[in-house]
């Protein structure tokens, strides 16, 4: 376990370095932020002077070394646009994204998993026939449409929940339903097929033959074995949710990291884009690590050492 963790941490550092180098180059390929920071009519010499003061006219390798030195100290630079250190700007938005993602993921799991399991255990039954089209509709509805529809019905027509903003539990309801919608369908579909696959195995027939109650067969045997593919999809979904939160955050004026990323990209605010990508990568690496550890917990056949057994 110790060796496994050490290896994975080293990998994580390499991934972070690689990703930050790629994002450093890509944001600079996109062009210069200074032209976007001045009013119309600003003469070229004033723009050039600003570029010089910000250090953007220095050779790329000089800028890169400064960036790496800052990265090693945990200093990701100052936002050109917001006039504040980039990393705290991102970290201030992170709890909002985590709150929204966690709520959406919890909702998707709480509804999607039982839905998929129920549909899988009663294959071809009325419930399965009803659940499948619902799942498909869920997957076909884009979040900008679901979100606006929810706002129109729940906020404008019924006046039940706030149409936008953050800060109270009520403001979390509509964005998390919107964000959960797609994941819910994915988790339900995956659980259904995983349960179906396990249900046809010999050990299930044996359990039934032994007289184990159908509920116990599903909960204690089928679900335990179906957990690995469901966990894989669910873990990947957390990353999808983090990425997909951009649209939901924009519609509901939720002050999350996704919106900050889009605004920073549009303004070519290099330092903030870099900070968002680095923090996002760290979260993704961490999620993957937790998933791998959970594999071992759920299935003793998975060895964490990574060495051939």
């Amino acid at each position: 376990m110790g060796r496994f963790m050490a290896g994975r941490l080293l990998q994580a550092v390499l991934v972070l370095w690689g990703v930050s180098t790629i994002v450093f180059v890509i944001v600079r390929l996109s062009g210069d932020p200074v032209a976007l920071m001045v009013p119309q009519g600003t003469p070229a010499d004033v723009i050039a002077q600003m570029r010089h003061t910000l250090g953007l006219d220095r050779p790329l390798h000089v800028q890169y070394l400064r960036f790496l030195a800052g990265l090693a100290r945990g200093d990701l630079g100052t936002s050109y646009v917001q006039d504040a250190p980039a990393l705290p700007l991102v970290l201030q938005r992170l709890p909002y994204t985590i709150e929204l993602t966690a709520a959406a993921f919890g909702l998707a799991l709480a509804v999607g998993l039982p839905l998929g399991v129920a549909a899988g255990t009663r294959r071809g039954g009325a419930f399965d026939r009803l659940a499948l089209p619902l799942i498909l509709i869920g997957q076909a509805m884009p979040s900008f449409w679901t979100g606006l529809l929810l706002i129109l019905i729940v906020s404008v027509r019924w006046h039940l929940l706030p149409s936008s903003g953050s800060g109270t539990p009520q403001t979390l309801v509509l964005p998390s339903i919107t964000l959960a919608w797609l994941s819910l369908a994915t988790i339900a579909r995956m659980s259904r097929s995983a349960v179906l696959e396990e249900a046809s195995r010999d050990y299930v027939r044996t359990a039934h033959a032994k007289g184990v109650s159908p509920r116990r067969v599903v909960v204690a045997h089928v679900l335990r074995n179906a957990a690995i593919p469901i966990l894989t999809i669910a873990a990947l979904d957390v990353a999808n949710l983090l990425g997909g939160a951009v649209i939901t955050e924009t519609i509901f004026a939720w002050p999350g990291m996704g919106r900050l990323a889009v605004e920073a990209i549009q303004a070519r605010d290099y330092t903030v884009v870099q900070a968002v990508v680095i923090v996002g990568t760290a979260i993704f690496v961490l999620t993957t690590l937790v998933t791998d550890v959970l594999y071992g917990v759920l299935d003793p056949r998975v060895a964490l050492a990574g060495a051939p057994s």
Partner: protein
Amino acid sequence: MAIRILAALALALTVAAAGPTMTTGATALTVDLQGDPATLDPGRQYDTNSYDVYRNIYDNFLHRNPQTSAIEADVATAWTAVSPTEWHFTIRNDVRFHDGTPLVAADVEASLARILDRQFNSPQYANFSAIATVKATGPDTLTIITSRPYPVLLAQLVNLSIVSKAYMQAHDQPYANAHPMGSGPYRFAAWLRGDHVTLRAVPAYWRGRPQIDEVTFRTVPETATRVADLQSGRAQLALGLTSDDVKTIKRDPKLQLLGGATERVAYLAFNALGPGPLRDVRARAAIAHAVDAASLIRILLAGYARSVTELLTSRHFGHDPKIPGYPHDLAKANQLLAESGHAGGLTLVFTTSPTYDQRIIQAIQGQLEQAGVTVKIQSYDFGTYLQKIQSPQHDWGDLRYGQWSCSCLDADGVIYPLFHTGSIWSSYSDPAFDKAVDDARSTLDAAARRAAYSTALNVLQRDVPAVPLWEVVALYGADRHLHWHPTVDEQLFVADMALGQ
């Protein structure tokens, strides 16, 4: 029982949905902005969202009358140009910053000096760069010396917000930005980046206590959500609405639509210096006559725009009512195309960015199609778009759409940067035009300036480097109890607003 629980839950949610609560009797206003204020430091600001918020925290050096557009006293009470380059100002002696310290001429000096400091990197540097020295000559007197006669100095000083010299010296830049402290009608209360800024009225404000006690500026990037916020009562004022939202707002008896004429002018600019067919003035004139701006206003903008015949509104200094513009005339367009050797039609590249209303770009493409002109639209993100059209090689394509505002209501801030030889926005060059606009910016004599701008506008009418399209109308949605008249310079002064019953 279950019904009772559901009813209680519904009630709780309804109460929560009503939004921020205020002390009984106090008046609160929520404003939905399109974007997040990037900074609340007036010297570092460049975006309109920041401007909308911080202008309420700080006092301004001069004020523009929203009705007459005349420049009037604010913190500065009197001014005189003792020579073409030397200005003397007197300022009020009863203004106090929110920390209780008095506002004196040294604060005005410091506010300008930091913008002029090249290391400070103010995006507003270009607006004030003609100022050579600024000096507080007493507690309430100030002298500004310009490096050349600078006729738009007063117009630019309307945009100057005054910061406290002592406060800026006592705190570092990020702190001063995150905790703005001014002398305006509202004091800073809270700022959650990406979400909202809250300001509270200053009871002892020198102009009198504002009617609205608390204002919250929220960042709501999606237009449909801003409209939903108005409909659900979460906001009382929403900015940046489009003609698509007009019907929804008008249909709702709780809401009102506020349309404000602005100083922004929409135009179609040509690349007269590039390698394309629009080097020929006849081809440019043909395009100008093929565009039907009146139809675009009527159909796409639901009538919320005013036709113009030059790139200035009637409120701009230098506007010449005699400029005829280019009436829609397809026959004339075809004739001009034939004269320029394009009787069989021609193909043009329309360079643009999603920042601009793409419906307008596509409608212009359709109108030009009727004159036998094929238009290829090439769209780039705004940064790349700027880079392309500002390239000194003038290889950006043939035409582009834009909206111009100088926040100064003076021809100098519009036609000089758009068309003067060598300006980064200009893909046009004419010595007579250059001389006229250079003459106009080198004297304070208003009559001489008007005459020079008239000459310049006549050159533009002849050479067609751009087609003036319309004066932009800013659309706001508001609660019907809000009393407010939008201003030409799109200032969002909450102290000028009131919420009735």
